[in-house]
């Protein structure tokens, strides 16, 4: 079967019940999605399938023939980062970085779906994603800033770390 990964046509040899995460990482060497729990609990493996965020660890590759799969690598390279990626860098929203690929995919889908900068709504959109380092506040700052275009890597931003969840 075939799938499209980050715009490239790829042929898949793995059996149809193989988790998409395993196909991406072990067969196709697409390493952005992470194996955090492989049980659908942590969100680190999240990818876009035809534009919708999905757990790749729980998605049998045979269930998504010819799908367009987008991983964090497909959103932007270091020299061409998307707004969400830039905001994550600018607001130090990635500490160890292991949850970040899933967070950025979910945030991208949320904003592309017309999501607001309201922190409660962002929290709900990211509720399926576990981060152990940041305490989430910087992530909320980053997503809200990406929504408003409120960042500039060349400047010194005011510290956003006083955000209080309401």
């Amino acid at each position, binding site marked *: 079967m075939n799938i499209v990964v980050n715009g490239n046509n790829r042929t898949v040899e793995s059996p149809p019940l193989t988790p998409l995460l395993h196909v991406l990482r072990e067969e196709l060497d697409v390493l952005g999605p992470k194996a955090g729990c492989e049980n659908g609990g942590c969100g680190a493996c999240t990818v876009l399938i035809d534009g919708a965020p999905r757990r790749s660890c729980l998605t049998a590759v045979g269930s998504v023939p010819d799908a367009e799969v987008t991983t964090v690598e497909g959103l932007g390279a270091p020299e061409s980062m998307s707004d969400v990626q830039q905001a994550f860098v600018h607001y130090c929203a990635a500490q160890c970085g292991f949850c970040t690929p899933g967070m950025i995919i979910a945030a991208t889908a949320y904003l592309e779906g017309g999501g607001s900068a309201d922190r409660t709504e962002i929290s709900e959109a990211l509720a399926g994603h576990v981060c*152990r380092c940041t305490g989430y506040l910087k992530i909320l700052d980053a997503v809200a800033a990406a929504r408003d275009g409120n960042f500039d890597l060349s400047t010194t931003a005011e510290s956003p770390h006083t955000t209080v969840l309401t």
Partner: protein
Amino acid sequence: MKAVGARLPRYDGVGHATGRTVYVDDVRVNRMLHTKALRSPHHHAAIKRLDTSRAEQMPGVAAIVTHTDVPLLTYGHLSALGIPADEPLLASEDVRYKGQPIAVVAATDTDAAQAAVDAIDIEFEELPALFDMRKSFDDDAPQIHHWGTIYPHFEGEMNVRQIRKGNVEQAFEQADRIISGVYRPAAIEQMPLETQVGLAVPEPDGRMTIYSCTQALYFSMGVVAAHLQLPLNKLKFVGGTVGGGFGGKVDTATETLCALLAQKSGRPVKWRWTREEEFLCSSTRAPWHMEIIDGVTSDGWILGRKMLTLHDAGGYARFSPYGVTKHSFHHTGAYTIPNLHFDGYVCFTNRTPTSAMRGYGVTSVSFAVETHMSRIATELGVDPYELRLKNANRIGDTSPNGIRYMDPSTVDVLHAIADATDAELAAPYSDATREMREGEWLPEHLVGQLSHSEDH
């Protein structure tokens, strides 16, 4: 000093945000093998038979390592601090916690490795298990550790970490009230998003390259070198990219066994734990049992403290004696109490061995002390800020282990908390400083402490 006060990007931020950061599980080498472990299904059992001959014949299996393959089976990670070795890298005679590794298999894929693990012939004799550290002191407690149920090697030969300072009995006689409390924080899993993972690659020149998620690169390098009985220059460690640690990755969980499997098979060997393994048998923060008895005056001075601490080490000592020692140094929290009687024990149980996590040994006692301070305030009817500001560490006060504080921040932190919570402080508490005690801040029971503090 250009960086001070400036807003700088994280050096690894772009890699994280674009999926380009290379974690251990992302390293790709040719002919890599994958690992699964035979782990104890019992909390406590004797191993009666272990035979890997059938498993070795299974398809895809490249190497199996058991205790007989380890050059130095039992190595004390903190032997430099006087904590003797007690934990074998792989179980040989007995297992003391559920999930304890007994054998590891390297095979062409994880399914083949698991099939070989399932084919290992092993027989256990299940033994009574101990889960409550308070029962470690019972005469009929199951004997789960060859040292007994209490760690016996503080200062070489003591089974207790003690602090004695001043005269607690006299302080209790002078006290208006005796206020006691028991505090029991539970075990916590550090739960990094990246599970324990390692990759060992044998190099053509006889060296071994080890990709590690450790929080303590050179420490782990020393551990691997010791178990393999290799000089350090035979090992090259690649690390620094850690998918979360929080103390749990101070342990050298995978690297040593990957290296042994790589030696035996001559091929690169990776071992990534499942989330289930991480929860089952990676070390946790310890459960603690803390009893505090304070002698206090009715206006809120703490004259003396007796404290008993039990620390649950699980099946082996690991770093626990070090944790309890740190704990003992902090058992008055951010406050000064001149008369102390502290006993701390490291108890062995059949729970998962415990280890570092964020403020190792100290978070437990901080929780207990602050809760106890609030309890004292409630029982005396004293304002909780005033109670804390009275007893707050100040310049010239001494810690439980006799260290003279040069610049303690307790008063300033309390003022900041009061500000943040809109708590109104009355004079003199609003004007308290960290400066040396005098006048109303120097009650009778602390006078001796100041004049004798140099003696400690």
